[in-house]
């Protein structure tokens, strides 16, 4: 029973060989088969609208049709004929919530060993593994993230046991029989990397390199040097690990770097310069506040929790004002979960971080805070042209909240993904139930 309150922290791991990039290798051997479900032209009328891109409309109107956002605006926005009207007075509308750091599917519920597929902890560098090959689409966690968290897109990352954990996969949070049926069309891959305690602990305990932070860097640098050699050649021979790293060097694959401490993030930024790649986001960046200026100058996002604390040495200097201090410096803030429970409340975590900022004199308006769990993660996942805000032409990924999303008293009432209503708190049949839950106690229950 104590497993339920065991150290949450971060998943760890991954290995060594990888996939394509510019060569003859197949660019997309496991293509998305996701097709949006049908939806009706819908007008959400009278809500407070946070568009995710920093705008707020009181008594606003949001129009969606053909799976896309048609418009978001104030009460003056005309509602065309043929739109189903939803009275949203007193309610709130935001873009679908996006989690840049999830392990749903690769560390699913139930958390039994047979389903534990998030860390290929057999080699400190495994850029050859792809998270999508571990994702179990029947993980009940996806439905909780949808119903309680309003999550419409999420990035599944390999764990952090390894320096280079493998490729991520970005999903639409749509139930599917296959992972391909969830894959976000056109989303770029990311390489998961990890600093600090986890890789050196996992491999140090096995009596192998790396067992220190300097070992972490040495292994990383040599791996990059080898990858550069490969990338500079004809790339004719398939090498799954080097294909991933070459993709990073080409700028086609993003880098999501688990890194807690400020000093290590600064070193990683220099390593990226040395090797010629770009870090997209630091994850679990609990000390980002100490180098907010550097993150701003480097144009790197910091993905953080609101107030996790005390679970490991490299989290000892975490402070609840972290997000607000990063935001004040002009750097990009993302609230992430790394947790199948936390993903259900990213909005509340953002609200806590906002309030912690306010108490030290940093006032951040609600419409900007909403970007911490919508547009900013979309940006770090390379899908901000398609989703993350309620701007015209984007995917109609929309949450109707029954109150302010920055209040503990609010829940998603309806969630649309590409314009299809996939969750409705007022209609019990509009609630996904995974295969695993059929015929079990609590099938179809509110969760």
């Amino acid at each position, binding site marked *: 029973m104590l*497993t339920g*309150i065991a150290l949450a922290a971060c998943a760890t791991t991954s290995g060594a060989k990888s996939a394509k990039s510019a060569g003859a290798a197949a660019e997309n051997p496991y293509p998305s088969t996701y097709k949006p479900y049908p939806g009706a032209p819908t007008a959400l009328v009278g809500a407070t609208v946070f568009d995710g891109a920093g705008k707020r409309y009181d008594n606003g109107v949001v129009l969606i049709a053909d799976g896309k956002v048609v418009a978001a605006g104030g009460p003056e926005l005309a509602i065309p004929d043929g739109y189903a009207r939803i009275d949203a007075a007193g309610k709130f509308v935001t873009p679908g919530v996006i989690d840049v750091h999830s392990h749903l599917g690769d560390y699913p519920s139930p958390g039994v060993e047979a389903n534990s597929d998030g860390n290929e902890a057999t080699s400190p560098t495994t850029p050859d593994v792809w998270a999508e090959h571990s994702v179990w689409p029947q993980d009940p966690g996806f439905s909780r993230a949808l119903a309680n968290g309003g999550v419409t897109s999420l990035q599944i990352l390999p764990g952090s046991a390894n320096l280079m954990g493998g490729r991520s996969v970005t999903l639409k949070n749509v139930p599917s029989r296959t992972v391909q049926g969830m894959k976000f069309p056109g989303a770029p891959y990311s390489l998961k990397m990890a600093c600090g305690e986890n890789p050196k602990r996992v491999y140090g305990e096995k009596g192998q390199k790396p067992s220190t932070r300097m070992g972490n860097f040495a292994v990383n640098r040599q791996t990059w040097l080898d990858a550069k050699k490969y990338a500079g050649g004809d790339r004719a021979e398939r090498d799954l690990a080097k294909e991933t790293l070459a993709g990073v060097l080409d700028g086609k694959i993003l880098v999501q770097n688990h890194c807690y401490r400020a000093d290590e993030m600064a070193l990683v930024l220099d390593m990226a310069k040395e090797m010629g790649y770009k870090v997209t986001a630091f994850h679990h960046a609990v000390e980002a506040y100490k180098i907010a200026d550097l993150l701003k100058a480097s144009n790197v996002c910091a993905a953080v929790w609101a107030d996790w604390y*005390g679970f490991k*040495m490299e989290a000892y200097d975490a402070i609840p004002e972290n997000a607000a201090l990063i935001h004040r410096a002009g750097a990009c803030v993302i609230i992430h979960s790394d947790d199948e429970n936390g993903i259900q*409340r990213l909005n*509340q975590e953002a609200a806590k971080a906002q309030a912690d900022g*306010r108490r030290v004199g940093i006032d951040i308006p609600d419409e900007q805070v909403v970007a911490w769990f919508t547009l900013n993660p979309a940006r770090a996942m390379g899908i901000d042209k398609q989703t993350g805000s309620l701007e015209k032409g984007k995917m109609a990924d929309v949450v109707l909240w029954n109150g302010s999303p920055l209040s503990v008293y609010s829940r998603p009432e309806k969630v649309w993904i590409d314009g299809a209503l996939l969750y409705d708190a007022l209609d019990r049949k509009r609630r996904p139930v995974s295969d695993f839950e059929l015929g079990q106690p609590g099938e179809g229950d509110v969760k």
Partner: protein
Amino acid sequence: MKRAALMLAALAALVPAGAATAQDFAITGATVAIGDGSEPVANGTVVVRAGKIVAAGAGVAVPPGVQVLDGSGMWVTPGLFAAFSDMGLYDVQAVGESDDRSADTSPFNAALDVTPAINPAAQDIAVSREGGVTRASVTPFNGSSIFAGQGAIIDLGADANAVTVPHAFQLVDLSEGGARLAGGSRVAAYVVLHNALREARDVAAMGPASDRKADAMLTRADAAALGPVIEGRQPLYVGVERAVDIRSVLALKREFPKLDLVLVGATEGWLVAGEIAAAGVPVIATALNDLPSSFEKLAATQSNIGRMKRAGVTVAIGMLAGSNQPRYAPQQAGNLVALAKLPGAAGLTWGEALAAITSIPARISGLGGTAGIKAGVLAPGAVGDVVIWDGDPLEVSSAPRRVFIDGVEQPLDNHQSRLKQRYHDLDESVLPKAYDW
């Protein structure tokens, strides 16, 4: 907010931080929540004298001669009670040498007692105090036995004396995890339990110098530690999750009628809520557990607590240990209020939700007043644990501004707050940050 800030400045002037002795004071004009399940009252008054609550609510007169603190714009609650926490037992969870929560290779189990290890200066106590937590039960975790040992009740005062009730309970794990510890199955766990209780009875019946039977499996210290459990003088906390396992635990009462059981976990409690209520066994549960994270939690739902409450179970939000920090309790309580709005879900009223993190866990932990100490409630004679909040205490945007324990105002600084102060700017134009303290 501005007005509230001014009021706080006034409060600060009246009540010097870190005062070492209990003050007599009254807070007026605040929204007051008693913690007994009732809804908050506007423009209320709380009177504290000699470290105890004298009165709280609307229409309470301020006695002459006590300091009056203007609580306009503020909320006042009893201090939060964190049931089943691990506070004071570690500095960093993943730094093994700082972690006293479990003793995996100890030859002892039930005899283990957290009391001498609890560190009142631990950061998690300071951080929780800043979060409005004033008292807690502290539990050991299981090492190599289904018996984890004995927990204690503490207050979070910034002083040397944390433990107010030692030997407050014994913990036994009869969940999946306990089954593994017992040798590999639930079947084995029940044999281990029965044998242990039998040996405890034997040891209790014999003199300290007497020899035990040759087949004794427990150390004498462990068997002796279970004596008060057998006699019902020490509560037995039972970790259990699955519906059928809860039934098996409740059935122990038939065999050992004196057992004073408390269920910890009870993820599937809602499926057997009527039976738990009929047995009069209280529950300490997590609030937002809604995933089938193991096969013993298939029916997990956030409605668990609300449904048990409706069935008449005394249930507290707890298990505030590990990464589930005690200061998260108000957020979890607030989520159960939110749940009440969803069709098909069972949540709590606001007053019930506050009670689930104040008076109810205090009562389950033996601080309901029958043993002399009453905590978790702003009732006459209760300990003077009072928290002044800058808003609705269950709302995620709110935080404590002032915390009193036994009428003594508490410092709210800690490692985190000092870092916050140092890094409010990144200016190192004159000296490095290391000189900024």
